[in-house]
């Protein structure tokens, strides 16, 4: 039987963690861009558009991420698209993140006083100019802390991509566990690595929050 040293285990997991980080970044950046677009639609005056966005958000918030992953993975296959687990997971997490970020940012936009909308409208700014030059710069100050905080949710959410066969940190932990028959050791390492990723984000988010309130 092959013996694995602790270093073997650790370095294998560390290698797999790169994929967790990459998937998180894709989901965060992609989700941020899609989320920003949805946010603009959410507040537009066009009939039904805001409602459609709020349903989009409700669907992603009201179903488990695990199920969303299955639906995207098998759904894309049904549509005849031959996708890798990586692409499916990236698409799914992007959509998932966009829904949550839109909702977080909607609250931040609502926190901007009504008078700012009225003053900018009185100066004949159109909706896009109001958003870009008056509302979003103010909403952004409020949004930074909860947005960074949500990054923690994304990092942990990537663990579910293991169920569709994407080899990231959790899946790598499973493989180590199966090969070494030492599940507790393997998952302890996995847990520590997630913590090493998430804790700095939480800490940063908290610091931003305190600075805002100071």
């Amino acid at each position, binding site marked *: 039987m092959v013996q694995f040293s602790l270093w073997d285990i650790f370095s294998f997991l560390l290698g797999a963690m790169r994929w967790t980080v990459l998937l998180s970044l894709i989901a965060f950046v992609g989700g941020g861009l899609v989320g920003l677009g949805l946010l603009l639609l959410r507040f537009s005056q066009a009939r039904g558009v805001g409602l459609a966005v709020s349903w989009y958000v409700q669907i992603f918030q009201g179903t488990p991420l695990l199920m969303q992953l299955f639906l995207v993975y098998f759904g894309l296959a049904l549509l005849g698209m031959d996708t890798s687990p990586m692409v499916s997971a990236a698409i799914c997490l992007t959509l998932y993140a966009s829904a949550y970020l839109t909702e977080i940012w909607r609250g931040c936009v609502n926190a901007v006083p009504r008078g*700012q909308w009225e*003053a900018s*409208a*009185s100066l*004949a*700014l*159109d909706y896009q*100019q109001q958003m870009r*030059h008056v509302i979003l710069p103010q909403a952004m100050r409020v949004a930074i802390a909860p947005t960074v905080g949500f990054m923690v949710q994304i990092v942990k959410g990537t663990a579910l991509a293991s169920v569709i066969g994407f080899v990231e940190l959790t899946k790598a932990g499973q493989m180590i566990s199966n090969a070494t028959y030492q599940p507790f050791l393997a998952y302890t390492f996995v847990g520590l690595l997630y913590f090493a990723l998430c804790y700095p984000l939480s800490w940063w988010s908290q610091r931003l929050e305190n600075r805002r309130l100071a």
Partner: protein
Amino acid sequence: MTDTNPPAFSLVDIRGLHKRFGATEVLKGIDLQVRRKEVVCIIGKSGSGKSTLLRCINGLETFEAGSLSVDGQALKHTDRDAMRNLRQQVGMIFQSFNLFPHLSAGRNVMLAPSLVKGIPRDDARTRAQALLERVGLGPLFDRLPEQLSGGQQQRVAIARALAMDPTVLLCDEITSALDPELVGEVLQVVEMLADEGMTLILVTHEMAFARKVSDRVVFMHQGLIHEAGTPDEIFNHPQSPELQQFLSALRD
């Protein structure tokens, strides 16, 4: 009693304006014509509909019936381009200043001319500087709103509205949020504008000021223009018991 002699051509022409919030009718048929260069003060108890009327003039509130036009252009809420054209004509100053807190005083003034009129940055900056000097705040171009007193903030807000070269300026209780010692500096600026021939419609609780600057004073009561006339008529010879009561309550 409404204005019995509407002028042939009015800059602001309001006819039969009705507005309701849910079940409450706040404006019950307002007729008001304002000529170019005229200064009109609207007075009345809170809840009489005076702020709502003012906010209708630049489309911050919609109305159910009646017509409203500025410089011959009818207000249409559904037509975005028409609304933007109207708002370039009509400036507004608010009780709570509503300066953009993330921009310096100067950038507050520059923003709309640059975005809406496409004025080049350098020109916009020069004009903003000149406007801030006009309201007595020349050296404070780079200050953020939070670094200014209430009176200074309100003067920046006036400069910001003036930057769009409006033909009429709406002032919605612009000194009500100020400490008493800061009221004077803001009213001084408004008086200067009146002297320069700006068309002004003001909702105000400063009766001494209304008496001094107005060409016409309008008393609103329960969603209607109850009495209107020269400052002398309104303040020295009030006709209706409602106006008499309103004025005497102020003197107590």
